[in-house]
C-alpha cells in the first residue's frame, strides 16, 4: 500500500495570506454606508453602531443623495417620509462633506426632522493619530 506523504502547508498559508490582504482592501468599501465618496469631518466621538439606516449624503458640489440615489432638494421630505413609513425608528445618517456650509446641512437636518425621523446622526470619521 502506498503511504501518503506530508501535507504541503505552504500553498494553504499563501492562500490564507492572500485572503487577508483581499479582506483588508475590500473592508473599507463594504463598511462605509454608501458608495458615494464624501469627505466627512473627523471626530473622536463614535455613538452610532452598524445598523440598517437611511443615508442622506450631501456632497461638496451640493448634490443631495438618499441611499445613493440623487434627488432634488425639494424631493427630500417625500423620499424620507416614504422610507420612514417602512420603519419609523430607522436611524437617519446625514453624511455631509466637511467643506460645505453648516447652514446647508442644518436645512437638511431640519427637513429630515420635520418628516418625523426620531433618530438623526451626523456621520464622522475617526482621526488618524
Amino acid at each position, binding site marked *: 500500500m502506498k503511504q501518503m506523504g506530508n501535507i504541503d502547508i505552504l500553498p494553504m498559508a499563501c492562500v490564507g495570506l492572500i485572503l*487577508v490582504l483581499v479582506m483588508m482592501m475590500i473592508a*473599507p468599501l463594504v463598511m462605509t454606508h454608501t458608495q458615494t465618496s464624501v469627505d466627512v469631518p473627523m471626530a473622536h466621538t463614535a*455613538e452610532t453602531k452598524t445598523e440598517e439606516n437611511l443615508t442622506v449624503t450631501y456632497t461638496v458640489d451640493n448634490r443631495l443623495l438618499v441611499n445613493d440615489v440623487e434627488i432634488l432638494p425639494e424631493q427630500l421630505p417625500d423620499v424620507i417620509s416614504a422610507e420612514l413609513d417602512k420603519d419609523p425608528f430607522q436611524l437617519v445618517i446625514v453624511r455631509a462633506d466637511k467643506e460645505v456650509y453648516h447652514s446647508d446641512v442644518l436645512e437638511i437636518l431640519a427637513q429630515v426632522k420635520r418628516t418625523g425621523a426620531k433618530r438623526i446622526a451626523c456621520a464622522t470619521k475617526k482621526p488618524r493619530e
Partner: protein
Amino acid sequence: MGKRRRLKFDKKPEGLILNSLVDIALSLVIGFIVTIPLFFESGIFVNTPGVAKASSGDVSDIKVNIHLLDNGAIMLNEETVSYERLEELLPELLARSVARKVIVSTEQNVKYERVVQILDLAKQKGAGELALLRSRQ
C-alpha cells in the same frame, strides 16, 4: 582545558519553517484590526434642529450655549472664548447642568467641519445631548 564542542551546522532542518510566514500573517491581521476603525464611519447623534425660542416664564436648565461666528470666533454663553478656554470651561459648565445639554448655533457662513469639531469636543467633555439651532435669538 576541556574539550570544546563543535556545533553542527551541516544538519538540514526537517520540513518547512513557517515561523516567519505566520509572523507576517499575524502582523497583517493585527494591523488590519487596528486600522479598520479609521476606515469605518461613525456618527454623532444630534437633536432637533429648530429655531431658538426665548420664553420668559420657563426655567431653563441649559448652561451651555455655543455660538460660532463667521470670523472663527467662539462665543460661550455670550462671551468670546478661545478653543482652549472652551475646552477648560465646558466640563465646569456641564457639571452644573442636570440635562447636560449643549446648544450650538452658528452664523450663515460657518463650515460644517467646525461645527462637528465643537460637537465632538462637547461630547468628549461630557455633554449628554447636543442640539443645533438654525438661528440665534
